[in-house]
Every structure is written in structure tokens, then in C-alpha cells.
């Protein structure tokens, strides 16, 4: 019966239906374009806003000391706005986190994609990804109330709020990103690539190290960079666990000293800073430096991602 009515429908649309269809199409398209445009524009406006607020600092004549001095005394008289120690502080905790997170994440990804039975992988991977969903303030509480006293009691450091503490916790936060993206890249490298390697007489270790991991290299690298961005952009944890001492560690390898990062400075001081003062604009200038670094990392990651996508594909076509 229903089928019969369907056949009875005239094939030609009435002008009314025609019009309605055209309007729906237009409205739908406009709406989608508007939504897409909003996303793009908000990124653009954030960038413009930060540049606009940072500009007075760059024209204030104190910009020279920004990168040459480590003295940050924004409320003193005369004020000093050197951010060198903070840039280094961000680098210290980020590099420290990467030194721990990259081997851990990469090994976990290889293990999940090539070694563990598929059923277990289906359980373990979501659990690792769940780590990324824990709010950073919760990590911060752990770092300050549990981990810092533990470091003091067991390693004998003077203060548990230091580079080591921050790096380890940041590594835990960056690992899910690295594992998730690397594992995707390794899986995407394909079964044929692995079977090809075995056919040439390679052992599983040789196949992994010399064929699969290089083939997925781009994807793994972009995962690492995304994890790095998570670490460098992290604010709450470093504000709580780094100690916020605005110093350059001396000697340079002493990672039990406190440092202060760019993000922590912005978060800690922005709320109370009087608007339109040099201090206020200086904080935006730090924000701009941070934005430039993450933007650079993001571009690198994008470039590597496209390269990574191409590689296994070409390999497959050749096979």
C-alpha cells in the first residue's frame, strides 16, 4: 500500500515545492557557512586581541629587556619586565616532560598496535585516553599534596615544587595524546607492510624497528608535538607545582630547583593587574610569545601529519 502511494507521487515538483527546496538549501548552506566562519573568526579575533593588547608594550621602550633580562619585578618601582627566565622555565618543564613521555608513549603505542592481543588493546587504549580527561587541577592537587612531600621525604630535595615534579606530572598528562596518535599511525601503516617485512626474513623486532616505525614516523612525530603543546600550554598544574620562582636553575642540570613558566605568570598575575598598565600589556606580550611558539609547533605538526599520511599510502600502492 505504502509502495503504491510512493509510485503515485508525481515526478515533477510543483513550483511551491521547488521554491521550498531551494530556500532550504540556501538557508542550510548559509547556516553552515556561518558556523564555520564563526570558528575561523574566533581564532582570528583571539590573535588580533592579543596582538592589540601586547602592542603598547612593544612600543614602550622596555621591550629590549624582555628577552635579554631575567628580572621580572612588574610591581616594583622602577619595574622590570625580563621574561627570559620564564621562557627557559617553560622549556625546562616541557623538555623534561618530553624526555619521560616520548619513550613511554612510543613504547606503549608499539605495544598496543603490534604486540598485545587485539581484544586487550580495545580495553587498554580507551583507558589510557581517559587520562587525558582528568582535569589538570586534579593533577595539580596530586602534585602538591602527595608528590611534592614524597619527593622531599625520599629524594631529600629542599622543595618538592620543582622542575622534576612538574615534568613527571606533565609527562603523565602528555602520554595519552602521544599514545593515541602514534598508535593510530602505527595501525594505519597496514598489515601488508608488516607481512612484506616478514616475507623478507625480518624478525618481529626488525620489522617493527626498521619498517613499521619509520613508515609511521610522521604520525608519531605529530603525536609527540601535540603532546608537547599540551605540556607547554599547561597552566594550572605548573602554577601549582613548579614553585614559581623566577630564576634560571644554577647549575643548569639541577632539576630539583623551582622555575616559573610563561603560562603560570599570566594566570597568576592577570586577575589583579590594573588594566592598561605596562604590567598588563607585558602579560599580553608573554601571551604573544607563547602563542607564537604553539603556533609554530602546530604548523610543524600539520606538515608532518600530511607527510605521514602520504607515506604508508605510497608504500601500499607499490606493494
Amino acid at each position, binding site marked *: 500500500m505504502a509502495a503504491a502511494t510512493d509510485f503515485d507521487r508525481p515526478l515533477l515538483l510543483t513550483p511551491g515545492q521547488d521554491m521550498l527546496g531551494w530556500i532550504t538549501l540556501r538557508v542550510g548552506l548559509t547556516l553552515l557557512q556561518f558556523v564555520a566562519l564563526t570558528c575561523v573568526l574566533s581564532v582570528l579575533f583571539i590573535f588580533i586581541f592579543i596582538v592589540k593588547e601586547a602592542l603598547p608594550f612593544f612600543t614602550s621602550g622596555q621591550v629590549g629587556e624582555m628577552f635579554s633580562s631575567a628580572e621580572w619585578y*612588574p610591581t616594583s618601582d622602577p619595574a622590570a619586565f625580563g621574561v627570559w627566565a620564564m621562557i627557559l622555565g617553560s622549556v625546562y618543564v616541557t623538555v623534561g616532560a618530553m624526555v619521560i613521555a616520548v619513550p613511554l608513549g612510543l613504547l606503549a603505542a608499539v605495544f598496543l598496535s603490534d604486540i598485545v592481543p587485539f581484544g586487550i588493546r580495545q580495553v587498554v587504549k580507551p583507558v589510557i585516553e581517559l587520562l587525558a580527561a582528568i582535569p589538570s587541577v586534579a593533577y595539580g592537587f596530586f602534585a602538591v*599534596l602527595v608528590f611534592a612531600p614524597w619527593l622531599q621525604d625520599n629524594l631529600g630535595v629542599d622543595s618538592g615544587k620543582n622542575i622534576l615534579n612538574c615534568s613527571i606530572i606533565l609527562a603523565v598528562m602528555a602520554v595519552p595524546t602521544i599514545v593515541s596518535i602514534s598508535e593510530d599511525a602505527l595501525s594505519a601503516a597496514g598489515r601488508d607492510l608488516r607481512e612484506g617485512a616478514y616475507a623478507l626474513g625480518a624478525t618481529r623486532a626488525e620489522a617493527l624497528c626498521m619498517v613499521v616505525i619509520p613508515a609511521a614516523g610522521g604520525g608519531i612525530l605529530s603525536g609527540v608535538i601535540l603532546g608537547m603543546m599540551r605540556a607547554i600550554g599547561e597552566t594550572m598544574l605548573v602554577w601549582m607545582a613548579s614553585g614559581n620562582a623566577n630564576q634560571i636553575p644554577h647549575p643548569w642540570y639541577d632539576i630539583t630547583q623551582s622555575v616559573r613558566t610563561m603560562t603560570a605568570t599570566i594566570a597568576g598575575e592577570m586577575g589583579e593587574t590594573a588594566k592598561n598598565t605596562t604590567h598588563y600589556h607585558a602579560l599580553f606580550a608573554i601571551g604573544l610569545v607563547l602563542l607564537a611558539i604553539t603556533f609554530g609547533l602546530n604548523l610543524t605538526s600539520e606538515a608532518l601529519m600530511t607527510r605521514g599520511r602520504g607515506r604508508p599510502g605510497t608504500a601500499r600502492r607499490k606493494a
Partner: protein
Amino acid sequence: MTRSKQVLILTALVGMMVAVAGAADPKTVKMEGSTTVGPIADAYTEVFKRMYPNVTITVNKTGSGNGAAAIVDSRCDIANMSRFMKIQEFKDAVAKGVMPVAHAIAMDGVCVIVHPSNPVSVLKTEQARNIYTGKITNWKELGGADRKIVVVSRDTSSGTYETFEKLVMAKQKMAAGVQYVASNPEAHATVKSTVGAVAYIGLGFVDKDVKALKIDGVMPSRKTIAKGEYPVSRPLFMFTNGYPKLGSIVHALVTFHLTPKGQDIIDAKGFVPVTDY
């Protein structure tokens, strides 16, 4: 006839508008100034909202200097200040026909705290300064154990920092190795869990988990702070233009610290009521 009627209606309308404007005016009270006094003013506002539901009180926390400028320009009804007015500000005020009257509403005392196991219990102001400038780096220089001092400060934008910097640091900069924490409870938690740490917090946050040090021989307490004997303490002010009209909202605000509720608020914000007998 119609014309006079129109005039009458118009007059009545204008009269009503003036009456409305006149009635609306005292219903907004503007407070501007210190970020230290700001939290007290905010808490007052909460209470006054319930007591006088049709009064709007606004609190701007822009710093004591801005508060003084605002009362001089009659831009606010009450200037919150964590310091007394400077001579120049006073002169500017009088020149503009404003007569600043100070109401000391609370005392702000900052305690220097260490871990309870630390044998050091007395510091001179100068020694405290030397710890924060990095001249003294080990507790043994102060008669304690051979242990590095972990120096903890509040963030530079907090009122507690402002007080400590003014009364202890004497224009000297804190060393680069000084750690910064965002709140009184965080400073407390850091000292509680770090054997070699020293920090400074408001009196209201001192408990048995940390040890407050005597400064220049005076133990910080409500009594010594209220009496002004403890060196790291200062009065907090609200300034008005002339003594406020008795019974007005402004009058109620600047005398609220004399009521039990007002004292509770000052206590809860970590300050010391001036009415400590």
C-alpha cells in the same frame, strides 16, 4: 485654560522626575580603591544586600591610589585604602572642596611562619628581609639546623604581598629563587609540608600546623596587632567626604566594623578587628 493645564501637567512630570532622581541617588553607593580592603567591602555588600534590598553597592578594586583619586574627584562615596592619604592627595581634595575623613576599619597583620619542627622562633625585621633578598640562605645562620631555606612568597599582586613588601622589604627586591603561591592556604600548605620553608600569611590562617615567628621580639596575636605592637601590621581605611550623614547607608558601611557581624567578616577575611579589647 488648556494651556495652564498643560503647564500643570508638565510641572508635575518634571517634579516627579526630580523626585525619582533624588530618591534614586542615595540608593547607589560606590566604593573604590584597595585590593586588600576590597574583600571586606565585598562581604559587607553581601550583608547589606539583604538588609537594604533596594540599595546597590558597587565595589571597584583598583588600588589605594585610584581610590584616593576617586574620592578627590567625587567619583565614589567611599575610598577603600590600605594606607593613609598622602599630603598631595589631601591638598588636592581640599582644593576641590572635599574633606577626607579616615575610618580605620581593621588591622592587617602578616605573620612569618615556619615548619613546627624548626627551632628558630625569633626574627628581626632585618633578618626577615635578608631571607627574602637572598642574603641569608641557610637556617644555621639564624641558629637553626643546617638546612637550606625554601623561601615562599605570595604572588606580587596580592594585598598580603603589598603589606609584607612595604613593612619588611624596605624597597629591596625579593631574590629570584623565591617561590610564589597564589593564596594564604597554599602558603600554609607549603610550609606545613616543607621542613625548610618560610612564608608569610594573614593572622587568620595561622594554626598549630605551622609556627608563627616573633618579629623583633613581638609575637603576632590579635592583641599585639590591634595595639600596633607587632611590626608587620598596618591599619586599613575607608575614606569619606566629610563625616557621613548619620543613619545613611554610607554611615552604616563605615561603622559596620563596630558590629559583631562586621567583626566576623573582618576575622573571616584574615584581618584583625580594631575593636579587640
